[in-house]
């Protein structure tokens, strides 16, 4: 019961971060502030979701797998954000083909 309540609370908190990050991605004016909103919010949001799901795991193996997922997404997200920011810094904002 306590585990289920904690899961629901943590998942909802995580979803708030995801919603905030998505709103930032859609509303912010330039690449850097969008990246700022997206990566920070997604990292913390996913962390909360993973933490919430850990209370539903069936054993330590599942908990470690969830932790691994979060760490991998952290590494990949950080690198992707860095590369987008660096590309924008050296080449300017992305231009579409149209």
């Amino acid at each position, binding site marked *: 019961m306590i585990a289920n309540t904690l899961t629901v609370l943590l998942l909802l908190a995580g979803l708030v971060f995801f919603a905030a990050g998505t709103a930032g991605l859609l509303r912010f004016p330039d690449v850097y502030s969008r990246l700022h909103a997206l990566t920070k919010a997604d990292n913390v949001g996913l962390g909360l979701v993973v933490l919430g799901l850990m209370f539903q795991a069936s054993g330590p193996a599942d908990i470690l797998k969830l932790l691994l997922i979060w760490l991998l997404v952290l*590494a*990949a997200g950080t*690198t992707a954000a*860095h590369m987008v920011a660096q590309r924008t810094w050296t080449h300017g904002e992305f231009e579409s083909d149209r």
Partner: protein
Amino acid sequence: MNGLLVLFDLVLLAGIVGVAWRCLASTDLFRAVVLFITFGLLLALAWVRLEAPDIALAEAAIGAGITGALLLVTLERLRSIMAERRSGRPHTPPPDPTGPHALLRALHDPPPERRTFIPALSFALVVGGLLVTALWHQPHSTGLEPVVDAHMDISGVDHPITAVLLNFRAYDTFLELAIVLIALLGAWSLGRHDLIPARPAPGPILPGTLRLLVPVAIVTGVYVLWAGSHAPGGAFQAGAILGAAGILLVLARPRQLPMAPGVPLRLGLTAGVALFLLVGLYGLVAGHGFLGYADAWAYPLILLIEVAATLSIALALVALFVAGRPAGDDA
């Protein structure tokens, strides 16, 4: 709870249709590719909801991941080729709208016309109606599940999907492997490989992350391959994961990777098909039929074929990404 799941399914369906439509309607190629990758990920979710995690894994790894990377690199090459053409011939006259090839050009770049809307809509409605009618009158059947379950003990593996793919219907899987190899031969026959016009990111972040991610990808790939005998997984998914690691390496260091040696590369590329064919021919000689195994040998043979197939698929995906046969071996 059930109502919530139905709601989730409906949202997912709407998302899939919406993303597919945006992808097809987009005039910006880059946006279309990104939407295609999103479409693949949503489709993987749909496979999960249909309780087909094997196909979900394959869709996410191959359909969204590798195909997305292939499309992106194609777009990059296309852009550099177009830029070369433009700088080579700066004074191209604008195309004559009534010239002899006007119809051909119109096929490639049709202007948005309102009068095509009604025929297109009615065509879509007719085809959709026919599909719905055909599906409506499907007789309800349990499929082949009972047959597969009844024969699991002689298949050599514990996972029904792997049993079907590598034992009961090994012929299909063999042809799938052969198609990957033929696709690569097609790409190689088009010409020698030129360097990807990618711009490697300066700085230590990307190489550092790759040092972290590539070992994890190798362990994950081998795990997915090994898990295939009793859980969702198998050669195609594992090959896609390993291939993705290779593509990341190629992308991060396009100029510094050593040239692949010709003979081992070709041996690795053909290992899956060749081994599968050898085992199949042996089955034919030994009296189990083409691609049949003796029951006691089923597990080791399936494992052997899966390992070789994983290696071949991973190498073929990277080679397709690099495109063109390796430079300097015309022997």
